[in-house]
């Protein structure tokens, strides 16, 4: 067997049944014995990650000890709510609908975002839509610069490079969404004495694709060690509805549809999985390249991107620092 065949997506294959059993036992121990909570709250987006986490929690804790929170807002895709309900009903777990748009309006989330967009696209106004994008790895010639895609009511779009104040303004405003959702999840957790389940996969967790104090906050994160393709393997084993399995991963954050690839990862997730695996396991760029469908230079550039994202993620992962360490480490 050649090296190119040895290094392939097969490296990411898992025994889904065995992994499910392991995770179910672990979740049960974490929630009931370590956290001493009666069940779990899962924010369900209609995507694959939260669906797998909700399913694992239902198996681990019992269907009546998991609540799925559906938290759409003004910019959510139309099918997010429908697929979230489909998931909850397929698992026969209780669900609650909490539209977070009023919270976001009160925080002036949309207004702040629009003001930031207008710093670089003054025409942005009523009826316009937008999203932030990075160039794909194959298109990037040097540094990866964020730009905003603005769509006029007549459908005409233009792509404008963001200034630092505009980029930071848009991100700071839209981060209200993840933080409002987490606030609502902890509200239900307090009401029911449940723990909050986090839903990041390995790509998101390791590379910092989450909001500190938002979707980065949770009491346990049961799939944070799994590559995206491994989450899909679990989804098939768990019988997650086909429509959810087929849905392209989205950020569901901006008014224009936005893939995770164009906002953060710069590569299709299957290739990103392999690149992260290669970086994690010390595989040389030229050795990984054939399996990833890239050339060695592109893999080397992605390794650099991974390193940079990891550096940026250190702040996101850091717990609050104490000036003095006491005997207890709890807040």
């Amino acid at each position, binding site marked *: 067997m050649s090296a190119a065949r040895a290094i392939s997506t097969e490296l990411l294959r898992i025994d889904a049944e065995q992994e499910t059993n392991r995770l179910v036992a672990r979740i049960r121990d974490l929630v009931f014995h370590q956290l001493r909570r009666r069940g779990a709250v899962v924010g369900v987006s209609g995507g694959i990650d939260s669906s797998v986490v909700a399913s694992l929690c239902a198996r681990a804790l019992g269907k009546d000890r998991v609540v799925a929170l559906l938290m759409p807002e003004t910019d959510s895709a139309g099918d997010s709510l429908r697929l979230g309900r489909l998931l909850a009903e397929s698992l026969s777990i209780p669900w609650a609908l909490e539209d977070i748009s009023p919270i976001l309006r009160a925080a002036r989330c949309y207004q702040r975002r629009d003001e930031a967009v207008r710093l670089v696209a003054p025409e942005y106004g009523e009826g316009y839509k937008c999203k932030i994008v990075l160039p794909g790895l194959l298109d990037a*010639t*040097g*540094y*990866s*610069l*964020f730009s905003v895609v603005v769509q006029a009511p007549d459908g005409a779009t233009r792509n404008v490079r963001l200034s*630092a104040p505009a*980029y930071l303004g848009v991100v700071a405003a839209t981060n209200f969404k993840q933080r409002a959702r987490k606030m609502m999840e902890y509200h239900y957790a307090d009401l029911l004495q449940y723990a909050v389940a986090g839903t990041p996969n390995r790509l998101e967790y390791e590379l910092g694709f989450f909001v500190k104090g938002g979707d980065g906050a949770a009491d346990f994160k049961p799939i944070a060690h799994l590559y995206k393709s491994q989450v899909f393997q679990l989804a098939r084993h768990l019988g997650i509805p086909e429509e959810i399995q087929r849905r392209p991963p989205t950020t569901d954050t901006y008014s224009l549809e936005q893939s995770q690839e164009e906002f953060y990862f710069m590569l299709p997730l299957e290739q990103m999985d392999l690149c992260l695996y290669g970086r994690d396991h010390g595989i040389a760029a030229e050795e990984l390249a054939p399996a990833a469908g890239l050339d060695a230079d592109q893999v080397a550039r992605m390794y650099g991107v991974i390193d940079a994202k990891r*550096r940026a993620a250190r702040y996101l992962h850091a717990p609050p620092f104490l000036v003095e360490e006491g005997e207890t480490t709890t807040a």
Partner: protein
Amino acid sequence: MATAAQQIRTFIEENYLFGRSDGLHDSDSFLEAGILDSTGILELIEFLGGRFHIVVTDEEVTPQNLDSIDKIVAFLQRKEGRSVCGTADEGSL
């Protein structure tokens, strides 16, 4: 009058090293040292535009032009040589 290199160093030290030079040499790579992230690059572009009155195009935003103090100075000299967008009036190259 501060040279361009000195002004760039001051910008980097104040915004990303927080007053510490951390042994940064003019030839050190910002990428390899982990000094600038994607937001930092955007800020650097704006700093160069405001201080030296140049427009940095998307095509020019490359490590070859911006990844060290030395490379930025050389980039500014090339831009000035072409007289594309005027010259620095707050510092000398």
